[in-house]
Structure formats: structure tokens, C-alpha cells
């Protein structure tokens, strides 16, 4: 009972922290809208490039524009959602807190540290990218015919949630590393932003080495590619077991668990920069 009321209390605090963030960002309305638009445009231009290049090539390893748009739309929507919820764990915003020592403030407050970092930032402008992802997803639905079944409709939100959790795990892991490096660990961009780009395309386009990395090191293949095969009713070229499309929640769960372990270990071994 005590534990439950504690959790409820912390959730209330989290809601207030995020509420404050949102209120303060909405104070500058023009800034908010230009930020939202520019964030949307930024990622749209890459998809626009893809649309233009498909005018000449028609398909990539047998995947049509509509099918690639399915991959792109899914991962854009979920990455943008993650980028908003996990704003506090964005290595670019978290590393300066370690650098300047403001992270120490979290340690002094009588509240769960992880929840505090969650509530420390909430970039509402990421909605721009979410809309962009939804538009690409809409383009995909208009170009390919998906034979929807109740199972597919139920699994779709679960896949999106898994992608959010998995990419959030990568943010947490990258931020944890800054406890040791102090500098933002820039190579982490390879797995976060690089991961999004990698998951925009069917896995068959990559070399064997990259395919193995995306399967066994960071299981991107189960987060977007295999679910897409299931939704689009495409055959599996790799011959994985038939449950492979349903591993997205499992992969996300493992990634989140490992990232949180690293995060706790990082906090335990954290020594302030003293500034």
C-alpha cells in the first residue's frame, strides 16, 4: 500500500514537471511553431529525397516506395515520440548536466532520480517529427494495400511502443556513458540516429556484417523489419522461425532492462565534476 501511494505521488510529480515544461514552451508561441515546423521539415527532406530517387529506380531490393514508406513512417513516428518522452535522456541535453554539475541537484532531492531526469526536459517541438512520420505512414497506406486482420490491428500499437522503448533504451545507455566520459559520447549517434536510418530500409540491402550487427548486437531487425514483413505479408528471405515478427516487445524489453542496469551502475559510480 505504501509502495503504491509512493508511486502515485511520484507520477503526480512527474506530471507536474512535464506540465511546467509544456507551459513554459508554449509561452513563446511563434518559437514553438517555427521549431515544430523546422523539426518536421528536417526529417521530411530525407524522405523527399527517397521519393525523388524512386522516380528513377522504382524499387529497392524488391521493396516499392509504399513499402519502404511503411518502414520509414513507423520508425519516424516512434523515434519522434521517444525523442519527446526521453528528452531528458538525450545525450546532448544530459551530458551538459554532468559537465556543469547540475546533475548533483537531482541527487539531493527526495525523489526517484530516473523519474527526475525523465521530467527534466520535454521537447514538445518533436511533435513536428511525429506528424511527419504520420504523414509518411499515411502515404504508405495509400500506396500499398494491407490486408488488415484483428491481430495486426492489435499488434501495431505494440510494435510502436516497443520501438519507443528500444530507442529510449539506447538514449539511456548513451547518457549513462557520459557519467564516465563527461563529454557527450558522440559515437552514440551512430546507434541512435544511425539506427533510425538503418531501420528505414529493408535489412536485405545491408552486407552480411551489418546484418549480423543489426540482429545480434542491437536487434534492429526485430524492431521494424520483421514486424513490417508481417503487416505487409512479405515472405521472410532469411528463414527465421515464424515467430520472428513478434519479437519486437521481447527485444525492446531486453534492451530497456540492460540500459537501466547500466544507468544504475553509472549513478552508483558517479563522482561529480565539482563545478
Amino acid at each position, binding site marked *: 500500500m505504501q509502495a503504491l501511494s509512493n508511486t502515485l505521488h511520484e507520477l503526480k510529480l512527474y506530471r507536474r514537471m512535464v506540465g511546467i515544461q509544456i507551459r513554459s514552451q508554449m509561452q513563446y508561441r511563434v518559437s514553438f511553431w517555427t521549431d515544430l515546423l*523546422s523539426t518536421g521539415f528536417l526529417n521530411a527532406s530525407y524522405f523527399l529525397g527517397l521519393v525523388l*530517387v524512386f522516380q528513377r529506380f522504382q524499387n529497392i531490393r524488391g521493396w516499392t516506395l509504399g513499402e519502404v514508406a511503411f518502414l520509414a513512417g513507423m520508425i519516424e513516428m516512434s523515434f519522434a515520440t521517444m525523442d519527446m518522452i526521453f528528452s531528458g535522456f538525450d545525450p546532448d541535453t544530459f551530458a551538459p548536466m554532468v559537465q556543469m554539475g547540475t546533475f548533483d541537484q537531482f541527487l539531493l532531492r527526495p525523489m526517484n532520480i530516473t523519474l527526475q531526469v525523465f521530467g527534466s526536459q520535454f521537447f514538445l517541438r518533436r511533435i513536428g517529427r511525429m506528424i511527419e512520420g504520420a504523414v509518411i505512414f499515411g502515404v504508405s497506406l495509400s500506396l500499398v494495400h494491407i490486408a488488415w486482420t484483428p491481430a495486426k490491428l492489435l499488434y501495431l500499437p505494440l510494435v510502436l511502443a516497443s520501438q519507443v522503448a528500444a530507442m529510449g533504451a539506447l538514449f539511456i545507455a548513451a547518457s549513462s556513458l557520459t557519467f564516465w566520459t563527461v563529454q557527450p559520447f558522440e559515437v552514440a549517434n551512430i546507434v541512435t540516429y544511425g539506427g533510425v536510418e538503418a531501420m528505414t530500409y529493408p535489412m536485405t540491402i545491408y552486407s552480411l556484417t551489418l546484418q549480423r550487427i543489426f540482429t545480434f548486437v542491437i536487434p534492429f531487425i526485430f524492431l521494424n523489419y520483421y514486424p513490417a514483413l508481417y503487416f505487409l505479408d512479405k515472405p521472410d528471405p532469411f528463414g527465421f522461425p515464424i515467430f520472428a515478427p513478434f519479437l519486437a516487445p521481447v527485444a525492446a524489453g531486453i534492451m530497456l532492462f540492460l540500459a537501466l542496469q547500466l544507468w544504475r551502475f553509472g549513478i552508483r559510480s558517479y563522482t561529480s565534476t565539482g563545478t
Partner: protein
Amino acid sequence: MNLFLRIARLSLRQQSTYRAAMVSGLLTNLFFGFLRAAVVIALYGQKQAVNGLSLRGALTMIALSQSLIAFSMIFGSFDLIRTVYNGSITTDLLKPVSLFTYWLARDTGQAIVRLIWRGLFFMLIFSLFYPLSLPERPEQWLALPFVLVGGWMVSFAYRFLVNLAAFWTPDARGIGRTAFTVSQLCSGFIFPLRLLPDWFSKALAFTPFPSMINTFLEVYVGTTRGAAIWQALLAQLFWFAVLTFLSQAIMRAGIKRLVLQGG
């Protein structure tokens, strides 16, 4: 001129101290380069050439565009915006060089370091993994340094012009992000323009964007030849002149209305 060289040299030295950032930037470029290369190889499939461009040529263009990211600051720069917002532009305005010359000098120093670390090293490492082509004809080798510098000049003038928005609005960063997004797609960075539809590249001929990246790629791979090379170089100079002229006029108006808060 002496002052220009001195600012450039200081900026070069400053840039050289960030070794770790250079290495991690290089690794990131390599990874994205591998992804882009995989996309282009898969797009080509069995095709030998597309719009006069061989797969080897396309891969070379992909590699070159990655190698120019830091040199031409393809993702944009926001330094001038920052100095307007934090007020340090006052000290820059007191310097015995114009704002444009000052930033051009700083950019020169940075660009030299980045061309070697992020450009040359990138090409060397990347060529271990993928078959790339080298320019074959002497005219290409003769023209390449010029179109490389020309592209950088156009890109600098464009970035400077975009940064001037800070004089009018507190949202210049958003405007910058949008402007640099447009230039990424239209300069041939995301995909070489030759692989995009003809109507698109024809329309772009009336803009400065292809001069920034695509011109260098085409001359290097050899898809732009003979007199066309010198026409492309002239186009670069033309756009540098236009953008610089525009930015001078806008800068003067901007500085006039600049009000700095103390503190």
C-alpha cells in the same frame, strides 16, 4: 590580408585541439557512409549505369558527399546567431575587419583542418571497403581544387546569409534548420542530383545549391567534362558574388537595428 591569415591560423589551431571530436565525427561519417552505400548498391541492383552514372561513380559520389560534411558544414552553422543572442557580437563588431571577413577567416582555418581529418582520412578509409574511382583526365585534376574551394565559398556565403536572420527574429535557429535542410537535399548531399528526376535538377540549375556539393562530385567522377567544368566554376563564382552582395546589404540593415542588452 595579414589579419585574415592570422585569424584563420588561430581558428585552425583551435580546431586541431579537438582530436577526440574529430575521431568520433569520422566514425559517424563512416557508419552513415556505409548505410548510404548499401542503399545505392541495392537501388542499382543489376543495372550497370543510371543516367550516365556507373555504380562505382555513384558510390564515389556518396563517399565524397560524406567527406565534405565537416568541410562545407553541410548540417549548417549557427555561430553568428549565437553571438547575436549572447551579445558577444559587440566585440566582433569592434574588430578592425568586417563581420563577413572575420567569419570567412575563421571558417577558412576550420575548413582546412576538417578537409584533412574528416575529408581525406574519410576517403582513404572508405576506399578500403568500397571500390571508388579516381579522376582520370588532367583537366579534372586541374579543376578540382577550384571547384572544391568554389563550393565551400558558396556554402559559406549561404550560411552567413541565413545566420543574419538573428538580427530580426529570436527564432533564427529554426529558420536556419529549415534553410540547411533545403540545402542538404538540393545540393546533392542526400542523393547525387544525377540520380534524382531530370525536372528536379533542371529547376535547381537556377539556384545556388548544386554549386555547393554537386559540382565537385560531378567533376570528380567525370560526368561534367570539358567546357562544362569551367561553366560550373563560373556558376560557383556567380553565386558566391550574389550571396555575398545580398548578405552585405542585409548585414548593414541588421547592424543598424541591432540593440544589445548589457550584462
